């Protein structure tokens, strides 16, 4: 269905090729996962399939391609759009019209399809993606997951034989992401649609994929592109979801891809190891960095936070987890003064914040919002840090800036345009812009969105480093694996109320919803990460 023969491609003005000698063959009706670090060329590879690369992006291209019987290099993207549907990362930036039905029909209208035929096509994709109930809705009133389903529906309107998706779930919460992925599985199974999906969070999609295309870390590396069935390729990869990583270490064969398959092995291993009750981590006795006392917050008279009391001490990382709309982000905004509580008291670094403006509070508490990109606008990374200092009227010490840049791993990028950096680097630049004031507390809202395993690991290490230096850190995240690796303490929130609080092993290990893969594999043992499991099993 899709054949790449020795494909190399360089972006215009780029010094090094984004793809080098890519060579693979994908049979019809496969569900293929494209994996690799960010910057490895996943997006570029996907864009070759429908001719966006090189027709849209320019640059130099070499090699041969065949997709659904056409050569994207000679057929225009317009011709390719009939064979290949494409869904992009950002659900906000791919719509032309504002209603579900109209948006789906947009491409058909441009192709001058007769109205009767259009009606059929639109009805068909509305049913396929379970959107019939939303057909008259405005796109801005839909959730992120619903919007991505509309984008898929719109991509399928031409009845393509291949569907390409570039990290379609990276901006979504787990529930919406699950909906989107389920829709993809259905399309693949029921229609035999060939699906090519780029995705970071492998633990979520590995079970559905039957093929994996792995891009090497850098295009000039020695290893070429790997392509094969999931079980063939996975053992050769370095970055893996916890289950597969553990299975690889313990040499389980055949490689388990789901918890169900893994349990079969883990049961046998733990039969004769006595369960050890999780030990409460030794409490830290830092000063209180952040505190809320009996806080109520309302939007339009609807309570969003109900009677919330919470303390984050200096030298601890507290992770706050909960469903969408449970009040997590509101809690962070209340702490930095972006939302004013109806009643209750808020302290940052031992001082009550009532009456202080956001800027004053944020000098003591850094806050990284979900949309970290909105922070960045200067010409260089270094300027971003300097602007914050200037805003606060603080002196601009070169050594302090240099050392922060070094901690963030951005020394080499200090002079670059922030928006040209990768997702992870951009996020670190934003982190630099808010922590250059050396705050005692740090608040992060969904910091792992769109990050690959390496970037997540780097972020986790950075947070632990800052914690050890005495910072009070509060993280809001959906990412259970990240929470398991990073948290000292976990708090669950639901409908604006804190419902559970304690060490991760206790809170997350017990909850089926928030349990990481390893905890599901070894229930009741309090192991959350691969390292803990290996230690517990006495392998290391």
């Amino acid at each position: 269905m899709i054949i790449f023969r020795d494909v190399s491609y360089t972006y215009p003005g780029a010094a090094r090729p984004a793809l080098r000698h890519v060579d693979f063959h994908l049979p019809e009706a496969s569900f293929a996962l494209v994996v690799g670090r960010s910057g490895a060329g996943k997006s570029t590879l996907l864009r070759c399939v429908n001719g966006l690369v090189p027709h849209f992006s320019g640059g130099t291209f070499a090699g041969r391609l065949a997709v659904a019987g056409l050569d994207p290099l000679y057929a225009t993207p317009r011709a390719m759009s009939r064979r290949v549907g494409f869904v992009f990362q950002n659900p906000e930036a791919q719509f032309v019209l504002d209603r579900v039905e109209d948006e789906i029909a947009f491409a058909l209208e441009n192709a001058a399809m007769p109205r009767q035929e259009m009606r059929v096509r639109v009805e068909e994709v509305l049913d396929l993606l379970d959107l019939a109930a939303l057909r008259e809705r405005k796109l801005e009133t839909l959730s992120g997951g619903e919007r991505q389903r509309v984008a898929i529906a719109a991509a399928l309107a031409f009845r393509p034989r291949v569907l390409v998706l570039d990290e379609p779930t990276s901006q979504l919460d787990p529930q919406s992401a699950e909906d989107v992925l389920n829709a993809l599985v259905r399309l693949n199974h029921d229609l035999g649609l060939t699906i090519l999906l780029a995705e970071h969070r492998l633990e979520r999609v590995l079970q559905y994929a039957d093929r994996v295309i792995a891009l090497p870390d850098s295009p000039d590396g020695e290893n070429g592109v790997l392509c094969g069935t999931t079980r063939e390729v996975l053992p050769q990869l370095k970055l893996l979801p916890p289950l597969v990583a553990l299975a690889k270490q313990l040499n389980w064969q055949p490689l388990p891809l789901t918890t169900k398959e893994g349990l079969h092995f883990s049961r046998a291993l733990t039969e004769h190891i006595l369960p050890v009750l999780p030990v409460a981590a030794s409490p830290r006795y830092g000063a209180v960095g952040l505190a809320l006392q009996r806080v109520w917050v309302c939007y339009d008279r609807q309570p969003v936070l109900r009677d919330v009391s919470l303390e984050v001490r200096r030298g601890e990382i507290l992770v706050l987890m909960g469903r969408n709309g449970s009040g997590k982000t509101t809690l962070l905004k209340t702490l930095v003064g972006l939302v004013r509580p109806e009643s209750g008291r808020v302290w940052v670094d031992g001082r009550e914040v009532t009456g202080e403006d956001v800027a004053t509070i944020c000098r003591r508490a850094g806050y990284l919002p979900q949309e970290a990109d909105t922070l960045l606008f200067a010409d260089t990374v270094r300027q971003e840090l300097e602007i914050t200092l200037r805003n606060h009227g603080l002196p601009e010490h070169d050594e302090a800036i240099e050392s922060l840049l070094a901690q963030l791993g951005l020394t080499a990028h200090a002079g670059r345009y922030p928006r040209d950096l990768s997702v992870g680097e951009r996020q670190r630049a934003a982190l630099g812009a808010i922590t250059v004031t050396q705050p005692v507390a740090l608040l992060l809202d969904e910091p792992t969105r769109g990050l690959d395993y390496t970037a997540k690991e780097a972020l986790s290490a950075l947070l632990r480093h800052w914690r050890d230096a005495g910072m009070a850190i509060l993280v809001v995240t959906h990412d259970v694996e990240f929470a398991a690796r990073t948290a000292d303490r976990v708090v669950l929130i639901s409908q604006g109320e804190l419902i559970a609080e304690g060490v991760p092993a206790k809170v997350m290990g017990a909850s089926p919803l928030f349990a990481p893969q390893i905890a599901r594999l070894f229930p009741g043992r309090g192991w959350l990460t691969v390292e803990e499991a290996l230690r517990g099993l006495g392998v290391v």
Partner: protein
Amino acid sequence: MRARLASWVVYLTSATIGVIAFLYPFFSSTLSDEAAMGMEHANDAPLLLTVLIGICFGALLVEAQAQAGSAKMIALLGVLVSINAPLRFLEVAVSGPGGFSPIFFLIVTTGYVMGGRFGFLMGALTLLVSALITAGVGPWLPYQMFTAGWIGLSAPACRPLVRLVRGEGTWREVAVLALFAGAWGLVYGVIMNLWFWPYAVGPQEQHWQPGTQWTDGIARYAAFYLATSLAWDAMRLAGNILLMFVFGLPTLRVLRRFQQRFTFTYQPVEQAGV
């Protein structure tokens, strides 16, 4: 070559027709033939002018959109208009500064960087969309679109001047653009008041007397303008200049940085058949 010639003919002719149309209320009263018809002549000047402006506008639009036909340009225009149009909310949010409107800043800068046709569409469509989202569709809309379009279309005229003062990327470039935007701020006001002038004046015979000069009409208009709008429009002039000086350089830098990205093209490399 012929296409370029046709483009210039369209620009110049529509400009001339526009100027005559805007001045029409002044010398129409001296058309003795018309006036002599007296009572039996209906006041159809506004209708005629609307039709003429409409035809010119259509011709200019077709001319301008010939360049903005690619998906890249269309998406770029759409998003820039969506940024610029809501800025009109600011006109009320920051109440007080008279006719000050922040929308001209982006019209001038995009026209200057991306080219006149792009600027024309940017100007005309900003006004259209802001009218649509604020329920502000009115008889003034065609005039606003036409004039704002011309602001964008004429913006590249600053380029030779900037080259003359060797000002690329410096404050001199911004100064040229500020003067340009300031002048248009005033002219825009003068033209905008004209849409209803024929109505305010009424049928032309009202003022026709033997010996009436067309300059009398202008004097009347000038009096009207000084009394009601000059202070108002001066704020627009000052606002445009101020905005250009404060935002000009960084905005030009951003636009130029992205302009490259939006104009990449692919030249197929010679290779063996597939």
